[in-house]
């Protein structure tokens, strides 16, 4: 709860900073502030508490994920300084919105009441609508914002309906009460209707097939840094929330639900990887890659009791690799009109560090040891096998193989071609962020135990 309050306070400060002409201080203060908040959050680890009639529940799950979100936001904010430097008038807005977005995210993983969940998801979504359309003069950005908004609020409607049905069936918004009731029998069928609708709404948020159509378009159209935010932070938040929802609302997931999850996961992995193969636009490619990863993460829902640690590890691995790669992508395509694979030609020569980082992050996403992505996938596979869904694992393996195709397309371009255009400068902040993120990723890979064990 302290985290939530502090984050909101920080956001408000950023808005004020504009007024009192402290624009230059915004990014450093925000980053430092978030670091401090990270400290606060981490200190709450192993001290579960409940706030305001269980509106907010702080437990290890929420603390762990909140910390991850905060770290990701720090990275994103660090890059914002340079990214928005030619838009000084809106600077504080963008920063503040990102911080509010973080507040929504934290709310989503620490809710104790469905209303808190709903508010969190809406804060997050509305922030993202704004950010997606934030490049006001670009028709692509407008289109991205509009598409995201329309589809997002459509999905919100479903979630809301679901919440309503659950409320109608149980008479509670409090998840603990709902959980207790769901253990017994005799709930009306619309309870399950409600659960299903909430889940489908969340599947939309994590861009699982067939609810994924918005993702590539929105990722492509949004400003690159926003894409980075969506593909790392927003995706991780949605997955964590989905997991939390499923575990806290309905521990005994009926077999039918699992079948649906498996089917959707396989479909998502297949769609994501297959469509990524043909993409020339890197952001769009990363969108499809993100879709396929969402498919993987869905597999965690098959072993609800044990998968929290694995999911945390997977999301962190994915998010750090994503941040690292988007730092490079942002840096490379900053002054370019397109974000095509060919824009990366010759990066291996012009900027070996960035090229190496991008390579490593792609390898991590592809699931090559010693990067964290490997352990993430592996332990997910192990758990899925234990849950008895070998077929899902096989599908995962096949889609991993396919994924090499497009990840390596980018790597090949970097190392095997000469640069088309003259090289531009690469601001140091992207490099720092990229290196830090990939270092975290590799660290997780070398000593994976530290994170797997957090959520035992």
């Amino acid at each position, binding site marked *: 709860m302290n985290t939530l309050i502090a984050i909101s306070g920080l956001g408000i400060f950023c808005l004020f900073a504009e007024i009192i002409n402290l624009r230059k201080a915004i990014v450093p203060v925000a980053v430092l502030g978030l670091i401090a908040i990270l400290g606060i959050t981490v200190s709450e680890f192993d001290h579960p508490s409940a706030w305001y009639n269980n509106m907010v529940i702080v437990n290890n799950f929420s603390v762990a994920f909140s910390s991850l979100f905060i770290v990701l936001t720090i990275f994103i904010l660090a890059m914002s300084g340079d990214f928005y430097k030619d838009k000084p008038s809106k600077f504080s807005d963008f920063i503040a919105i990102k911080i509010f977005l973080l507040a929504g995210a934290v709310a989503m993983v620490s809710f104790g009441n469905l*209303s808190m969940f709903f*508010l969190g998801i809406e804060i997050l*979504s509305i922030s993202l609508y704004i950010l997606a359309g934030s490049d006001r003069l670009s028709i692509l950005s407008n*289109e991205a914002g*509009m598409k995201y908004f329309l589809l997002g609020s*459509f999905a*919100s*409607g479903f979630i809301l309906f679901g919440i*309503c049905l659950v409320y*109608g069936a149980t008479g509670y918004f409090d998840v603990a009460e709902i959980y207790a009731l769901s253990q017994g029998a005799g709930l009306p069928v619309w309870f399950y209707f409600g659960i299903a609708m909430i889940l489908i709404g969340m599947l939309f948020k994590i861009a699982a097939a067939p609810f994924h159509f918005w993702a590539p378009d929105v990722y492509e159209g949004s400003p690159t840094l926003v894409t980075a935010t969506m593909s790392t932070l927003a995706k991780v938040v949605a997955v964590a929330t989905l997991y939390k929802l499923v575990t806290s609302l309905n521990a005994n997931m009926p077999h039918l639900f699992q079948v649906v999850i498996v089917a959707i996961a396989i479909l998502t992995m297949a769609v994501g990887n297959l469509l990524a193969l043909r993409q020339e636009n890197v952001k769009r490619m990363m969108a499809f890659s993100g879709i396929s990863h969402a498919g993987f993460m869905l597999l965690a829902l098959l072993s609800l009791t044990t998968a929290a640690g694995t999911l945390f590890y997977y999301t962190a691995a994915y998010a750090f690799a994503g941040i690292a790669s988007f730092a490079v992508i942002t840096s490379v395509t900053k002054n370019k009109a397109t974000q095509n694979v060919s824009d990366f030609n010759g990066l291996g020569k012009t900027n070996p560090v960035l090229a190496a980082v991008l390579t490593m992050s792609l390898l991590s996403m592809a699931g090559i040891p010693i990067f964290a992505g490997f352990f993430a996938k592996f332990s997910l596979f192990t758990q899925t096998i234990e849950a008895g869904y070998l077929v899902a694992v096989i599908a995962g393996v096949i889609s991993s193989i396919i994924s090499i195709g497009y990840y390596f397309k980018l790597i090949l371009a970097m190392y095997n071609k000469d640069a088309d255009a003259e090289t531009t400068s690469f601001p140091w902040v992207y490099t720092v962020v990229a290196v830090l993120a990939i270092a975290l990723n590799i660290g997780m890979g070398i000593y994976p135990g530290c994170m797997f064990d957090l959520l035992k």
Partner: protein
Amino acid sequence: MENILNHIGIENYIFLSVILFCIGVFGVLYRRNAIIVFMSIEIMLNAVNLLFVAFSTYHQDAEGQVFVFFSMAVAAAEVAVGLAILVAIFRNIGSIDIANLKNLKG
């Protein structure tokens, strides 16, 4: 406590809401004017709000009605953002037909 639900039955409220919700859904699906689409989404949300209230009464519990306020506030914020984006689009392409938004694909 005596209330109207004893006479009409909660199922009917649910059916009504579902019908309203579906009307909203079909509106979103079939209309191409962005404003009308917005309104359809509002219908969907309000269908839910209606149901919230009904359930609130059904359960003799105020929470549901409180939630309606939340959801109305959220819907308002959402539409505000949506309209802002719409304005930007209108300025760029001079149309609010969502069928024109096909630059991003593939």
